[in-house]
């Protein structure tokens, strides 16, 4: 280690990449659920229908994070 180095980081850059890939879907799933809770609070009798839509929305949003998880299998090996 030379004098100019203050801190050294070792490890796989892909981990940081996946961390970044998880940010977007995290926010997205949070938005989907929070809006569903809000809607159910406004209109409790629609709860069953809204929950089905919520699971759909979560499934679509979550797919992005899971594609991030799949990239090392596709490009890394």
């Amino acid at each position: 280690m030379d004098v100019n180095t203050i801190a050294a980081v070792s490890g796989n850059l892909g981990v940081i990449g996946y961390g970044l890939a998880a940010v977007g879907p995290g926010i997205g799933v949070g938005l989907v659920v929070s809006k569903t809770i809000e809607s159910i609070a406004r209109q409790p009798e629609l709860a069953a229908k809204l929950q089905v839509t919520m699971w759909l929305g979560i499934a679509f949003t979550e797919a992005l994070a899971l594609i991030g998880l799949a990239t090392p299998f596709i490009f890394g090996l």
Partner: protein
Amino acid sequence: MEFYPDDFLFAGTFFAINRIMAIRLIVLTVLVIVTLLWAGKFRKSYAAGSHVPGRFQLMGEIALNFVRKSIAHEQLGEKDGDRFLPLLTTIFFVTLGMNVTGIIPGFNIAGTSIIGLPIVMAIAAYITFIYAGVKRHGGHFFTASLFPAGVPKAFYILVTPIEFLSTFILRPVTLALRLTMNMIAGHLLLVLCFSATQFFLFNSEGLFKAFGAGTFLFGFVFTLFEMLVAFLQAYVFTLLTTVYIQLALSDEH
């Protein structure tokens, strides 16, 4: 790697069986037996004209009606729902059975955590929703889904490739990937928790041993969470297949 264990039967041939294949075959046998028993019970009580189901029969009725009523009929309506019900029921129970092995002690890995099985089911869903659309709308199905109505003509340069990618390529890919990656991530989490417990209890000193209790608790909680995920992924897979069929059947096309 854990997801590609060694073959132990018929190694080297096309029918090589490793740990995961064996788990899949066991689950398949259990599913077939349970379904046959249910069918026998239903037939017997129908012939006898009895209206009071027993405990085992009631379980079957609840499980089968869950797919029929709250997925198929809710999204597709009675007529189309019953038409596609065999596929939806199969997808739901196969996915559920294969997912649940991820948390059964002794098996400890989901049959769906290798992408082969999810790909097969995604292809089945893909073929079915294209078949449903073509049967209902003919060749118009493709033009309507590639050139959605109400878009200015010039934008089709932009819209058509996106629609093609999302409808005909990303749909089956995400169906298969979502299921597999959920199961892999769940398995890795459990492995992490329990191997951390092992490490803290046996390989560390002093107060660090106390961490072992914490990680074990986390492992237990994540096992319960995996139970939820196993059911949820089966539900989501079936629901998405239903929604794709419903979109293909809808009159906008």
